[in-house]
């Protein structure tokens, strides 16, 4: 009975370690092998933005010109290409999956006058509690229409998209906050 209990606990302990470790491994693969994309951020609803320990993200590339609306709550895939300014844009949307370093899974939202809104698989950038308020302010200032200087980098590998860094004025967030302590 005792050894059975120990064996069972060993299995449970392995599962408890394995699940987060699996996520770490998959993410590490994407971060080391994936192709780097830059996404220009867009202003977010201020009510949405204040969420404690992360910065809520929205992207200009989430609005895709499309003649017909995609059914909501379906799964769709966005095929990315690099725009002339070096930032990622959605080349086209498709219901069928594709493999490669330019495909991400998206969730279709509303459609309005030939423009399909989709949600990328990353919409929050986790920060520590200490810098969260300052990060929030810096991000809001960086996504104003007259001063667009915020973007994120993400790596895409075999359909998995891993958010890498949030940049403001071409500096990683933590570095930017260190250089601009008063904000």
């Amino acid at each position: 009975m005792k050894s059975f209990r120990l064996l069972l606990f060993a299995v449970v302990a392995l599962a408890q370690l394995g699940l987060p470790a699996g996520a770490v491994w998959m993410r590490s693969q994407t971060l080391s092998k994936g192709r780097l994309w830059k996404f220009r951020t867009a202003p977010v609803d201020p009510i949405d933005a204040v969420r404690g320990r992360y910065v809520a993200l929205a992207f200009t590339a989430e609005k895709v010109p499309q003649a017909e609306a995609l059914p909501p709550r379906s799964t769709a895939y966005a095929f990315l290409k690099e725009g002339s300014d070096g930032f990622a844009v959605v080349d086209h949307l498709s219901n069928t999956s594709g493999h490669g370093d330019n495909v991400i899974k998206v969730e279709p939202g509303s459609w309005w006058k030939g423009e399909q809104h989709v949600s990328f698989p990353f919409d929050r950038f986790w920060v520590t509690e200490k810098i969260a308020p300052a990060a929030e302010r810096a991000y809001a200032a960086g996504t104003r229409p007259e001063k667009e200087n915020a973007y994120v980098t993400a790596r895409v590998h075999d359909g998995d998209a891993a958010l890498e860094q949030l940049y403001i004025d071409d500096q990683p967030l933590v570095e930017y906050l260190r250089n601009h302590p008063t904000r």
Partner: protein
Amino acid sequence: MAESTDLRAIRWLRGQLPKLVAGGVINAQSADAIDRHYSAAAARSTNFGFVILAAIGSALVGAGIILLVAHNWDDFSRTTRCGIAFLPLVVAQILGFFVLLRRNDSPAWRESVAILDVATVGTAIALVSQIFQIQGNFANFLRVWMLLSIPIVYLFRANFGAVAYLIGSAAWVLGKAGWSFHRPGTMFFWVLLLLIIPFYGGMVRRGRAGWGFHVLSVALIVAAAIGLQVTVEFANGAVGAVAFAGFFTTVYLAGMRWQDDGSRSLNVLSLIGGLGIAVTAVVLSFEDIWQVRAGFLTTGSSLEQKMAVTIALLFPAAAIALAAWSFARGKIFYSLAAACFPLVATVARLVAGWGPDSGGSSDRRSPFAASILLNVYALVLGIELMVRGIRAGSVLRANFGLLVIAALALARFFDSDLSFVTRGVGFIVVGAGFLIANLFFFRKRGSA
């Protein structure tokens, strides 16, 4: 070992030993043997206190380390942060092996290490998600966390762990349902709840005297009630009245079934069940509640909604089966009026939905008849509870019956367009009824 838990009684008994020896009731050897026997029990309890303090101490040290680490968190590399995320979990697991090997007989050790393991699993997942910017919502996080925690409850026979699991499951279903209560996927809650039932069943079999049974019962009832509310909202078929009538009656009947013979006071299940039945009956006596359409399902109901209706209707079915089974065996240990609640609610629901469709936007059929039925029912329930209270010689229970009648009367005063004078007279009558009944009751008890 129930005897080791009642420290006050042990202290009293050990204090009495010299008097008993002096009085010649027992000899000195017996007194010594009794003293030795109970000193071991007292030592075990001191151990419990020590372990609880040790657990709090180690939690504080852990929190301190986390604060120190958090101060420089952003300066660490991703690998270092990742190592820090896993460290508490690994420590908890090593402690877990130690407890299973060496301290398996100590409830305090088992409870502490189970809570530690459950907490550190959550911490590890949350920190890894944060470090690697892994996206996902709170509900999904909670579900993974709970599924990784439930084996710990069984392996360490941990009551606190079970309560934590139930809180997590209830939080999951609320998070999953969202504000609209109509998001799909919430029926998985019942799988989460079923996973804890064998543990609870084991506890019921082992004994229902300890604090563990009471705390876990309350947690289970509250979690199930939250899940049932989400279920009936999601089902969208006006099954709430029947479902909750069945739910509270099941709880009440189970409580009465497990009532310990020697005890005069009701156990926690009977209490909550009885209270739930009374409150639900008074709420259902309002006419507005019964404005429902005929069927439980609409043509557009999804498979999951059909499942939700079935789950909601399982509770009244269980209550009726429990009552009928005891009735058939000639063991009626419960209030008949309370046991009839699911039947009454079902009839009222059928009556309310019966009749021609008015065709308007508000699908109004015969809510009035249903509310009359529930008014009569609540009155009968109040009277029966009062009579049972008087028979059992319990002032509290007799007054509870009166309270149900008074609540019903109050509900009708506010519900209907009576004049102020009529309402005033009504209040006086209800108040006088309380006074007279109690006077009568105490006089009867005094003369007995």
